[in-house]
């Protein structure tokens, strides 16, 4: 059976990194070599998307080799396997990461002038790490790739970043690491108490509710920092502002999705009862995040920081959608993950285009660009409207489903989340207006040159799926449906065990003394 696909998905960029590190070529030679690997990666990703069997809910193309066994005393040991697999939940994200690979390279060619070799090596390692996270079906392997993917971005931001890059990159690295080490402890707890680290097995084992809650919260901390959810988001604007364009694209495009994907696969998938218990809280924080992120974005004068804050709001929508824990919300969450990747990736690409020409990011520095560089203005308008969820573009189906999920969960939550659509329009359109429309305020803007071939290529790679998802959302949602329905059955199981648990405690309470006693498990 074709189990060679997934190791290759992780292998191609890794081999690419090795090849670029050792290749004797000079600047352009290196870029084309790296681009070759990235193109192969993108092709394979699209190939995987097409060959994926949309009707089968469990993992496909699985590739598993025993790695080592963690002895847990008393003879037996916890088998740890190098186990890759893809299913409905990770399909779209794997495709997106593959697709973004060439975009990162193409955008990097413009503004990486020094130490290109190192940059290309780190980018390729980054892509390998990302694919590894989405494909790994073994908790330990997931953690292994999860931490490996931190290092490349640390260097990408650190070496090619802006003036405060060291502060930003150390903050990003330590913040994410602090969250993930707590996840490691929970991971070990699972290994020892349930004898396995395979995600599939853990999802089927019915872990007691109290243990589920503990592990869920530990995992949730790591993912909340990565998403980022509001109280833990302060590293994102700094990281984006200081990161080079290519770094921002990969950070916004894929890295943030590891958090939401983790919530989905490991949070809801393995600890359904805890997910049901904490669901409303997390969705509430997500909704607050949408509004808070939007207000933050509205107050920004730096274009890149504005888009970074908008990602906080968009990721809030995804979290609200997912933790509505119903059919529409989960579908919306998964689709919105790649929508955000595409539209924010394109927005950062465009900010990079401006930065390469003017070396400045303040919105006030621009104005009336539509008259000077119309092509750029058109792409910026499309990206802006895609990010605020205009029907016909990719933003609408995802956001619609997320909000519908939230509304089905509770109308109040739906209303709060929907406020984000209005606020989104406010700050995005005001940015678009101040950048593209109005009179030309700066002399330097007169001489700007429009998008060149390379920039057009990377923009088109993003625009095609953006329009395609907008026109034919079912093509992208259908393959994920079986996996989502499987997840829904998990959630139902979680709800039942939670009700059982509360029911049991309720009986004890009643038996103890005649008192009002709250009703059984909250919905």
């Amino acid at each position, binding site marked *: 059976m074709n189990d060679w696909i997934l190791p290759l998905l992780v292998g191609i960029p890794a081999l690419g990194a090795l090849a670029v590190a050792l290749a004797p070529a000079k600047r352009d030679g290196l870029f084309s070599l790296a681009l070759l690997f990235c193109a192969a990666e993108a092709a394979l990703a699209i190939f995987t998307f097409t060959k994926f069997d949309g009707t089968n809910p469990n993992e496909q193309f699985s590739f598993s080799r025993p790695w080592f066994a963690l002895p847990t005393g008393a003879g037996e040991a916890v088998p740890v396997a190098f186990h890759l697999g893809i299913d409905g939940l990770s399909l779209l994200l794997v495709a997106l990461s593959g697709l973004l690979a060439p975009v990162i390279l193409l955008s990097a060619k413009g503004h990486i002038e020094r130490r290109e070799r190192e940059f290309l090596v780190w980018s390729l390692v980054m892509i390998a790490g990302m694919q590894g996270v989405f494909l790994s079906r073994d908790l330990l392997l997931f953690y292994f790739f999860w931490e490996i993917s931190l290092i490349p971005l640390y260097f990408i931001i650190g070496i090619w970043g802006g003036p405060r890059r060291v502060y930003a990159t150390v903050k990003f690295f330590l913040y994410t690491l602090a969250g993930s080490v707590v996840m490691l402890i929970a991971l070990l707890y699972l290994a020892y108490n349930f004898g396995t680290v395979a995600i599939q097995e853990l999802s089927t084992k019915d872990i007691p509710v109290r243990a589920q809650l503990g592990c869920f919260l530990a995992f949730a901390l790591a993912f909340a920092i990565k998403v980022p959810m509001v109280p833990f988001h302060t590293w994102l604007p700094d990281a984006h502002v200081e990161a080079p364009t290519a770094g921002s694209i990969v950070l916004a495009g894929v890295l943030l999705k590891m958090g939401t994907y983790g919530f989905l696969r490991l949070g809801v998938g393995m600890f359904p009862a805890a997910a049901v218990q904490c669901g409303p809280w997390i969705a509430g924080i997500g909704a607050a995040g949408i509004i808070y992120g939007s207000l933050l974005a509205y*107050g920004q004068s730096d274009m890149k920081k504005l888009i970074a804050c908008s990602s906080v709001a968009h990721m809030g929508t995804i979290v609200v959608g997912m933790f509505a824990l119903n059919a529409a919300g989960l579908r919306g969450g998964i689709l919105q993950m790649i929508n955000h990747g595409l539209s924010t990736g394109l927005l950062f690409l465009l900010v990079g285009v401006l930065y390469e020409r003017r070396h400045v990011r303040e919105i006030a520095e621009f104005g009336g660009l539509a008259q000077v560089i119309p092509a750029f203005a058109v792409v910026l308008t499309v990206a802006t409207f895609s990010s605020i969820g205009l029907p016909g573009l990719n933003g609408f189906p995802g956001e619609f489903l997320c909000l519908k999920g939230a509304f089905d969960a509770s109308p109040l939550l739906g209303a709060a989340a929907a406020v984000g659509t209005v606020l989104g329009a406010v700050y995005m359109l005001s940015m678009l207006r101040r950048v593209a429309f109005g009179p030309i305020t700066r002399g330097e803007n007169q001489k700007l040159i429009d998008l060149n071939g390379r920039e057009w290529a990377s923009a088109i790679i993003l625009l095609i799926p953006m329009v395609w998802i907008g026109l034919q959302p*079912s093509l992208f949602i259908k393959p994920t449906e079986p996996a989502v329905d499987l997840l829904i059955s998990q959630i139902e199981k979680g709800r039942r065990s939670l009700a059982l648990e509360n029911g049991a405690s309720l009986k004890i309470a009643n038996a103890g003394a005649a008192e009002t006693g709250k009703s059984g498990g909250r919905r």
Partner: protein
Amino acid sequence: MSLLPLIPLFPLVGAAACAILHARTLAARRRDAGAAQNERVVGAIATLAIVASFAVSVAGFFIIQHEPERRVAWIVSNWIPTGGQTIDFGFVLDPLSSVMCLVVSGVGALIHMYATGYMRGDKGYARFFTYLNLFVAAMLILVLADSLPILFIGWEGVGLCSYLLIGFWHENMKYAEAGQKAFVVNRIGDFGFLLAMFGAATWCVDAAGKGSFQFAAINESVLAGHVEPWQVTVIGLLLFVGACGKSAQLPLYVWLPDAMAGPTPVSALIHAATMVTAGVYLVIRMHPIFDASVLASSVVACVGAATALFAATMGLVARDIKKVLAYSTISQLGFLFLGAGCGAYDASFYHLVTHAFFKALLFLGAGAVILAMHHEQDLFKMGGLKRALPLEYRTMFVGAAALAGIPLMSGFFSKDEILGGVLAGRPVFGNEQINLVLYVVGAATALMTAFYTFRLIYLAFEGESRSNEHPHANPASMTIPLAALALLTIAAAALGLPSVFGEFKPLEHWLNPVLELGGESGNAAKAHGLSHSAQWLLLGASAAIAMIGYSLARATYGGGLAKSRARAEAMPGIYKTLVDRWYVDELYHAVFTKTLRLAGVVAGLFDAYVVDGAVNGVAASAKRAAAAARGLADGKLQSYSLWFGAGAVALVAAVLLLI
């Protein structure tokens, strides 16, 4: 019937073609600045696309005659799988949507022809027609949609095109701001619409308990009583919020006057004939909801009446010719909602159609005047154009007469039908007296409408010219649509003569299948039916109101500007507030924009100092601990050994204690 998707498809293809041509022009212009635009080709493509769509609509209009319930549908199933209620990409052509298609594509075609002349020489010619075609396509999707989400696609699509077209001359920051304001206010309305959609999908369940987004299913479920009353009211009110955003009713009307920043054909097409009526179309399409909930329909009626009156007052003193027409549009839309709110759906739809014709005519006429006066829009700087622009004068006079409700004009009959519907319609908030009050408000508005309409005519065309510009004639491509629309305005009267002149009401019969959904409750006005004498009385009153308005306008503005100025100064207080549009804009700016900006800054500071402060605080405390740790290692062997000894003692003590 696979013809249906063609209706929106033609304008879409047209828009794509114009876009490609525009891109080619831009590329050519980049090589040498003076590259000529192929205006003729672009104009032809764009207009033909709309004419083709109009032709298909006409064909569709005749085809559905023979269909059983005059209804034809086309569906792409499971467009967005939501795991619950499926969302199919479906169009339906039934009496209501077919008439709307005819109006949209018909008036659209005329306006496109007009625009080819109006926009001549503009360097964004092809870009303009790309957006215009895109708009018509979106409007057609909106009208043909058979379910709320697909209507929402058209709904936001027209919002986008109005944003692009209002801010068409984006070099001017004022226009760009107007475009953004329009989109944001529309988005606030869409917020309500979105929640209404979700509410309808979850609450309006059929017998089997399965919700759906389809209009038919929702209406059926409401009629069958599967939905609790409060839910119906909530959906109704939220739908009305969406309608207010799109049709510029109180309190979300502020964007329409600023939308006049767009080129005049845009104002004619979007802000008079088509987009702004989308809200009324929605109410009529979902009328079982409004029939079922007294509260919702009463709110619609009252807000409609209030907006009508309020906008009319501002129309009295507006100096810019397009602003006058903009306020009049808001006011007439108020009328439509007033009618719909009282259950007179066919009356308000009739007025919607007639209004589309004569308001488009007035706007196009105004455009011609502006073009002739080299882009001068201030009425006080015009005058005496009667001689220079005879055709424009006559056609605009017809439009003005219809708007003012001069007897025998289509506007007179349609407005009268609404006022009749209000009187005989469903009691608002459950008691008759309010209907009477609403009638009086309507009548007052009609009076003011007549007054400001003819004020416009007299200021622009009568008296001697107050500007040193000598107006030049407009090209044929602009005058033909004017004439056509004038004819349409006159002919439209035939669509719905009052029953007193015999039962000749083609429009009403045509709409029955759609409006009869609720059986008796569907069209309340018809059921009560005013006695003949009451109808005559009503007709007389409307005629009187129109004539009074006309003569008042003639008296004040007939003799030239000086005398009218004096009368205006007579009541300075009111005049000033009216001129400043009741200070609403300033209020909105202060309440919304300022607080939002302040909230943005506060959030930024809070984020930087509190949330980020906490993170940096942790780092700082770690550094403080590090400094303390370094302090311990002072290099002296004695202190090292002291620590060693203390450690050993502590260890021994601990072990002994823990045995």
